[in-house]
């Protein structure tokens, strides 16, 4: 006797997208199988046994309409039922009462099936237990397609149609979505895969992005992260960078709107660096590493596309700098003579974090001869004098990226970061008569002849990074510091 073909009832699916799909019975057992699964083939006679014993039974088949034999299966080769019922393994049994699922089990276990169905002596001759197989609906690629097809309401972003004869990469250019370089077209599949990189909900608001102060959801970040070329595991870092950039302290609007040459620079600390393969070594400030390159780029694309901050519009930088394509790198903590930047800025050792800094393009400190820390510090100070202008003091901020060879000088000399900072700050107290406007025949300068420090104590930072060979370090100068300008912001990376 075969289980009669049940008529659909008004039972609802979990996913209320207004679809017509319904459970095939109001009360009874629903089974989901696929012929290609050995355990499903093993239990096919058990399903027949259940049907014959009078159980209300509906069996979904995922791949072969003639399977299981002797039972008229319900066609789920499109996998809609398996998706909506969140089937992860086959065979799966679901107990349905009043049109709702109240229990389920997967795989074959005689005792479990007997308890579940209330029918004794199931599957005589079968082994006690066999594990099941993966459901077709959760295979990679298929899972995302099903999500898009049946669970479409999860992705809220407006759909943009690329016409049949259009080149989707050109289309992204023409719609103004890029930074001048090609982007990865943000298909729903790619965005769904990206969203798997975070446990946050896609519709959670991350921040209000200047200049338009538009609330930016996790989904929108994911779309721009896809375009930037990020992998899903980078997404939490991009989200943290955006959160930090959109704080009042960082003043992203000011950073964007200024005619000065700065853009957001992202420095990454903690275990996340290794986990996502970031570069903190050779060519750390240059090209070639995917996580470095794409994380910084994703942030810029969000600012452009969600925030509306575009060159020629709110962004009226006179010159800009190449770092506005992307500026993101990892600190070399393992080889550093000092504590990481994030720890200095108040986080616990071992915390993954980003620090946002409104930075211009780096400029190199060349010193191949100073083997003692005080001499090298004097080199640093001499070069730092020119941040913004040698005759401007107090109002700027800088990061020194100290390379391993220079770092070794300070390690061997026993200088802590604190000491290095203080020595440089002291060396850079500049006489007012040098600073004042007009001095040296240069009209630029400070308004009075007051003696001033080049940097206030909390405006000089050191980060350890770079390749093992090379007696060079690098200065990243900032925009105007303090409340009038931008201040660095450190944000923990959360998954």
């Amino acid at each position: 006797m075969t289980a009669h073909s049940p008529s659909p009832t008004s039972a609802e699916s979990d996913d209320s997208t207004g679809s017509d799909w319904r459970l095939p019975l109001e009360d009874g057992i629903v089974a989901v199988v696929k012929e290609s699964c050995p355990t499903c083939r093993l239990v096919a006679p058990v399903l027949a046994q259940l049907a014959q014993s009078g159980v209300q039974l509906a069996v979904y088949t995922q791949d072969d309409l003639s399977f299981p034999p002797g039972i008229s299966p319900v066609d789920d080769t499109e996998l809609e039922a398996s998706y909506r019922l969140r089937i992860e393994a086959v065979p799966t049994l679901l107990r349905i009462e009043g049109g709702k699922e109240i229990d389920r089990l997967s795989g074959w276990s005689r005792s479990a099936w007997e308890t579940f169905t209330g029918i004794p002596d199931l599957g005589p001759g079968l082994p006690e237990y066999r594990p099941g197989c993966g459901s077709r609906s959760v295979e990679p690629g298929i899972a995302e397609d099903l999500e898009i097809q049946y669970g479409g309401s999860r992705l809220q972003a407006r759909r943009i149609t690329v016409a049949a004869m259009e080149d989707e990469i050109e289309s992204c250019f023409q719609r103004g979505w890029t930074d001048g370089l090609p982007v990865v077209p943000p298909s729903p599949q790619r965005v769904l895969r990206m969203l798997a990189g975070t446990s946050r909900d896609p519709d959670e608001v991350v921040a209000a992005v200047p200049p338009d102060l538009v609330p930016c959801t996790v989904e929108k970040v994911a779309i721009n992260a896809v375009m930037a070329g990020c992998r899903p595991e980078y997404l939490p870092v991009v989200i943290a960078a955006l959160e930090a950039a959109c704080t009042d302290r960082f003043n992203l609007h000011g950073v964007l709107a200024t005619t000065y040459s700065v853009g957001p620079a992202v420095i990454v600390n903690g275990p996340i660096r290794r986990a996502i393969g970031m570069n903190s070594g050779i060519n750390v400030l240059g090209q070639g590493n995917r996580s470095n390159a794409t994380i910084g780029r994703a942030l810029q694309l969000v600012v452009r596309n969600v925030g509306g901050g575009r060159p020629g519009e709110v962004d009226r930088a006179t010159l800009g700098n190449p770092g506005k394509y992307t500026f993101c790198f990892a600190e070399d903590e393992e080889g550093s003579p000092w504590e990481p930047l994030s720890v200095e800025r108040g986080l616990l050792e071992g915390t993954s974090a980003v620090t946002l800094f409104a930075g211009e393009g780096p400029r190199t400190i060349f010193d191949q001869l100073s083997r003692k820390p005080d001499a090298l510090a004097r080199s640093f100070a001499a070069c730092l004098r020119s941040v913004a202008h040698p005759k401007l003091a107090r109002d700027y901020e800088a990061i020194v990226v100290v390379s391993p060879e220079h770092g070794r000088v300070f390690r061997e000399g026993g200088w802590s970061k604190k000491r290095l900072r203080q020595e440089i700050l002291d060396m850079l107290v500049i006489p007012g008569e040098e600073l004042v406007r007009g001095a040296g025949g240069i009209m630029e300068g400070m308004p009075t002849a007051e003696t001033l420090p080049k940097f206030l104590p909390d405006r000089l930072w050191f980060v350890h990074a770079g390749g093992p060979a090379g007696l060079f370090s690098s200065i990243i100068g900032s925009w105007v510091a303090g409340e009038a300008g931008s201040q660095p912001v450190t944000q923990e990376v959360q998954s």
Partner: protein
Amino acid sequence: MTERLLLDPTSERASSRRERVPRPSTLEGLTVGLLDIAKYRGDVFLDRIEELLTARGLQVVRFRKPTFTKVCPPGLGRDITSRADVVVEALAD
């Protein structure tokens, strides 16, 4: 290729339609380009259009695609955009 879908990366404040290039409010003072796409009789048609435009006091420049079957060669495209403000293409059938 088939139609494909992308998700909008923007704030969605602007329309998603691909807008046409904005048109001027008047042709006065502008140069009208007449592009013959090299189909039969297009030249006769455009000769008359040229007469009519010139009679209205408008500047006209004539262009011609070398062959109907291929797209506008890049040099011709640049020529048109640098010498004309608007363009009439004729005569497609």
